[in-house]
């Protein structure tokens, strides 16, 4: 996990089943299906680093696998380690 003051989007790769719902529902069109596969062979979703995540959490809400979630910059708690 890379610490940042921006919105962070986390993907549990082993839970993702590559349904592409998050991709479809992201209003910023930031997400895409990567070539990487997880141990079940599903293509894992990835994020375009250059886009502007608005922290709307649509990706997280629509994800049927609880595989993606967002920590927005303002709610990022203080943590000891990076």
């Amino acid at each position, binding site marked *: *996990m*890379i610490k*940042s003051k*921006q*919105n*962070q*989007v*986390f*993907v*549990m*790769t*082993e*839970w993702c*089943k*590559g*349904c*592409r*719902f998050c991709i*479809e*529902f992201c209003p910023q069109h*930031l997400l895409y299906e990567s070539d990487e596969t997880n141990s079940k062979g*599903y293509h*894992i979703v*990835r*994020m*375009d*680093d*250059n*886009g*502007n*995540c608005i922290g709307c959490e*649509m990706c*997280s*809400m*629509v*994800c*049927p*696998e*609880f*595989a993606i*979630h967002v*920590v927005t910059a303002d709610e990022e708690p203080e943590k000891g380690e990076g």
Partner: protein
Amino acid sequence: MNVLAVTDEAREKHPLEDYLRVDRLPHIWCPGCGLGTILGAFLRGLLKSGLTPDKVAVVSGIGCTGRVAGYIKLDSFHTTHGRAIAFATGLKLAKPELKVVVFSGDGDLAAIGGNHLIHAGRRNIDMTVLCVNNFNYGMTGGQFGPTTPETARSTTSRAGNIENPFNMSALAAASGATYVARWTAAQIHQMEKSIIEALLKKGFSFVEIISPCPTYYGRMNRLPTGLDQMRYYRSNSVVRHGANPNEVGAGTNGQIVTGKFIDIERPYLPGPRDGENGG
């Protein structure tokens, strides 16, 4: 720059994690199935509703949807096919302080469980029913059921369904439900909001949620992926609060009218006095 963290073990906690049996994830549902999405909406709605989660019990029947009970970290019951509402009726009447939620599938609630549905509606039992309508019996491999649109194909209607389907929202309303709403799994925010309203309703509240079943219904009816179905629902649903549910059926060959159809008051059971009995 956004950060996408691909995590595995030392990951950030998912905001719903306290209410999910994380040790059972990933769940058994197919890629592109809408059930996980709906489960998320329920949990968010529950947390926002202000109800005390420990006083909320979830009862499911059997089916893909019925499996939700096993993923929710609340007191949860995975009962028999069709009997979730009856089980929940006993639970609620015996312990009125609980908020009882039935979370099950269209087959479970409208095929084998149809009688309990209409009678719970008639009695106006104070409970919330979340019915995931995927237009078929997913768990047993995609047979048609009482919500399958006419002419739709299924593993037991390869030539097209010849039966007229139920409009579940209309049936619930006709039976006496005091809160009735229909959404698709693609209507993330409305679905969540409606779930909150239903949870807070005193009386029998019924929320029908139309959901993709890509593996069977979708594949056999020209919407082969969950994404196809989600897109279809997104672009074909309209919101018409207060619509007469009798006049707005649901299917996959035309507009899907969604919204809050019914929100009325009627005496419910167990009534306030029953709650005080506490014998």
